Structure formats: C-alpha cells, structure tokens
C-alpha cells in the first residue's frame, strides 16, 4: 500500500517538522480515515523517505495514574520500542538498602527489607534532578544520589499495631521536593502496610532509596501495566486465533480500538498482504511514582539517549557529517523539533544535561561540543546542549 501521507503534506512541505495545526486533533474522527495508513513508502529523490509529518498522537483518556493514547504514522518497531522503554528503562526511586537497627517483629529481616523495597516512592523529577548512585562521585549516600528514610515503631499497648508506609520519615536533604516520599492514596492516608507488631515488639530501620531502572529490579518499574494493541480486527493476519467453532465469536475485541480503524481494516475486509499497521493503542497505567505523561516522555527520552550513544559511538558528526545535504536537512529538523519539548515546554529542560549540570549518562561533558556538531556552521538551538553552543552534546 503506497501512500502519500495526506493533505497536510502539501501544506507543510516547506516546514519538515514544524508545528502542526492543532484543530484536527480536537476530534478523533478527523483521523478515522487514516487510522490504517501506514508510514513510509514515500521517498524523495535522494532516497530518504519524506515522512513530513512524523508520529501523531491522540490522547483518548487521561487520569491521575493512567493515560490512553493512539499513536499513528509511525512504525510498529518504534511503538514497540517505546513500550519496552517505558516498561523497563524509565528511572524511578526505590528503597535499595535497608539497615535493620532492631527487629523484634515476627517477620524476618529479609522479609521486611523486601517489602520496603516494593513501596512506591514519589519519583517526580528524579530525572534529571537525581544521579544514579554508581555515577555519583560521593562514594556513599549524598543528597544528590540518595534519599534516607527512617522508620521507628514500637508497640506499647495491648493489641496489634500496624506499621504503614506513612511511618517512613525522610531524614536529611534530598534532590528535590518530591523524590522519596511514599506514595499514599488511601483515604486514611496510611499507605501500604509494612508489618504488624504485637505488644513489646519493635521495628527500627534505616533505608536508602536510590534511582534505578526496572531492568535491574522490577521494583523500579514506573508502570503497573502497559496495554498495547494494534490491528484489533487482525486484518494483517499477524495472529492465528485458536477457536472451537468461530474465532470471531470466541475472542474478545475492544470495540473502542476496533471502531477506531477505518473501513479497510474492518474484520470482513479483504486481506492486503502489503498493508502495515497504522494505529497503535497504548494504555499506560502508572504505579503512582510518576505522572503518566512523564512515564511516556521519559520513555521517549530513554530511546533518544540510546540513539545518541550510538551516534556518539560511531563518531557521528566528527567526520563527514555535514558534507551530506540530507544530514543537514535532518539536523535542522532535529533542532526544530527539539526546541519545543525541551525548551519552552519546561517539562524536561535539562534532559540532555543543560549547562553545568551532571548528566546521568556517564562521562559526556554536559552540552559537549563534540558529539554532533563537527563543522556545522549553524547552531541548532538548545535542545541537547547549552544555549549558544555549537552542536548537540549528547
């Protein structure tokens, strides 16, 4: 299925990645017809594909801990990589070391340490405010890389005393005003139950919470679940459903996703072997440690950082970067694209290490001049580097 993207393409031909008209996105119906339109297929004479519009997003639902959105005009690979990045590589803050000062409860030390590790802690702004401990040169627990929480409970009376997450008290300074606070959502303000104490039993611990990713331990996962679906009517035949009598009757379909797709993906439409998936349905549910939009944005950043490391590893920009007109065009696009999310939006100013800031990605000089910019005559604004510096500084 070869596609010229859609009418917008003509309109925006001169501005590869500049801002789009907002109005069509007020209504999801505007996209119904293009739900199935794949990406790619459109190339200019240099062989690069045009993709003048880039990925499209429609947010269908947003609540405190959950965001439901549809991704369009992008590849299955990119959508799936975003899903994987959000699941496993977005940094959050969790208790990682527990010093048991006294434990006369019925639970063994390890049991309690494990429970403490699983308590969700507010992680807003841990990226970029907080450093990974292994990248901090303090050699211990400093206020840039660790949050210390203490718990001291003793049951003095007859009956059972409940020890809750709210009893964890932050001591010492911390990277910002959010990081490390237990997430408490129940009406009574207790938070998760840690242990129960009988008369005379006591629990005193000192915990160190640090930044980490779920690839190291699942407790750092920012998400409780990430729903991901494409081609709900199985038009592409990527799935071969098992069935008793009739697959259609026996397998559930999410009508919201199924109806999103246009006519040619309806379950009874003819099979098109060249079709590519065009709409990806995400349902991101957070644990409460990060706002759902932050999970998505940080997932995007994780991917960008990976790519930046590859560019740096290959020495991109240092050799013949700017000899190539395509490269220039794309660099321009990166600059234009980057300016909004990382700059004015104020959401993630220092994603790639603003001036003088420590980056959490190891030894690159913040806003370093080497990585991208080589002989580039133009400066691409501030997205990745300090203002006024020539180049990207991944």
């Amino acid at each position, binding site marked *: 299925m070869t596609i010229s993207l859609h009418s917008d393409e003509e309109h925006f031909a001169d501005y590869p990645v500049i801002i789009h008209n907002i109005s069509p996105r007020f209504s999801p119906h505007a996209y119904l017809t293009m739900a199935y339109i794949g990406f790619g297929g459109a190339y200019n004479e240099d062989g690069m594909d045009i993709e003048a519009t880039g990925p499209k997003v429609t947010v269908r639902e947003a609540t405190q801990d959950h*965001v439901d959105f549809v991704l369009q005009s992008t590849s299955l690979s990119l959508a799936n990589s975003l899903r994987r990045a959000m699941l496993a590589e977005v940094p959050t803050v969790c208790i990682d070391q527990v010093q048991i000062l006294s434990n006369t409860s019925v639970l063994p030390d390890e049991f309690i340490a494990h429970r403490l590790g699983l308590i969700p802690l507010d992680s807003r702004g841990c990226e970029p405010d907080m450093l990974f401990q292994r990248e901090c040169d303090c050699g211990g627990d400093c206020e840039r890389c660790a949050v210390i929480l203490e718990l001291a409970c003793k049951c003095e009376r007859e009956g059972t005393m409940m020890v809750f997450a709210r009893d964890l008290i932050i001591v010492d300074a911390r990277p910002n005003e959010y990081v490390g606070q237990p997430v408490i959502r129940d009406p009574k303000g207790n938070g998760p139950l840690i242990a129960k104490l009988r008369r005379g039993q006591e629990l005193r611990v000192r915990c160190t919470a640090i930044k980490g990713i779920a690839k*190291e331990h699942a407790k750092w996962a920012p998400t409780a679940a990430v729903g991901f679906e494409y081609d709900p009517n199985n038009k592409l035949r990527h799935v071969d459903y098992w069935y008793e009598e009739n697959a259609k009757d026996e397998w559930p379909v999410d009508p919201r996703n199924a109806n999103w797709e246009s006519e040619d993906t309806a379950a009874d439409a003819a099979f098109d072997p060249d079709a590519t998936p065009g709409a990806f349905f995400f349902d991101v549910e957070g644990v409460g440690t990060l706002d759902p939009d932050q999970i998505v944005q940080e997932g*995007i*950043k994780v991917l960008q950082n990976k790519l930046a490391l590859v560019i740096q590893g290959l020495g991109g920009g240092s050799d013949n970067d700017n000899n190539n007109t395509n490269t220039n065009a794309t660099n321009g696009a990166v600059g234009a694209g980057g300016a909004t*999310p990382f700059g004015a939006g104020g959401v993630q100013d220092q994603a790639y290490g603003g001036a003088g800031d420590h980056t959490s990605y190891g030894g690159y000089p913040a806003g370093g001049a080497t990585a991208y910019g080589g002989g580039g005559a133009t400066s691409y604004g501030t997205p990745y580097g300090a203002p006024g510096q020539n180049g990207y500084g991944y």
Partner: protein
Amino acid sequence: MTNKPEPFEQFLLAEGEKKVEMTLDTRMPNTCIFKFNKEDHTLGNLLRARLLQDRRVTFAAYKVPHPLFPTFELRVQTDGSLSPKEALLQACRDSVSDLNTLSREFTKEYELRKMVNEGRENGI
C-alpha cells in the same frame, strides 16, 4: 557462590567496553556488521526498521546471538551510494527527530485532554 550475572550487567558497559563495534563483512560489498553492547531488541528492532525505510539500504537485519548475553548484531548493506555506517547514523538521527516530534505531539495532546477534563469537572 553462584555464577548468576549481576543484573546491572544487562545495561552497564563494562570497563573499556564500547557501545558499538563495527566490522566489515568482506563477503559482500558495502556491508558492515555492527555489534551493540548492553543493548537489546528495544534498540535493535528500532534501528532495523528505520534502516529499511531508507531506499539506499539493501539489507538490514539484527539478531541476538544468545539470550543470556546483552548484545545484538546488526547487519547492514547499502547500494554503495553511502556507507553502512552513514546509513546507520542517518537512521539514528531520523529516529531522534521522530521521537522529538512524538514528544511534542504528546505534550500538546495531553495538555489538551487535561483541559477538556478540567472543563468537564467545572461543568463547562
């Protein structure tokens, strides 16, 4: 006591280890094999798909040689109008720019949705 690998070995480069190692595939013209260390399908599949969108790339595929080792190999062949390395760099840059667009679009859409929600709460 055991030979269980440390979990951080899945994503932290060892001392002196490089992120990407490039080897020329001498059996074919314009072909390179890139070995990525401490990376997985998240990056491998992303780059593979992106490279295939470039018409000058005649072959792009990746494999994870062994599930216990956090590496993947990406093999790239071009038609000769650019080197596999240039193609890969281009793919990376294009993906970064795509993700920029995605981030911006998401911010916009999310704010919009939140405004709608607030409007509803206030009975507008």
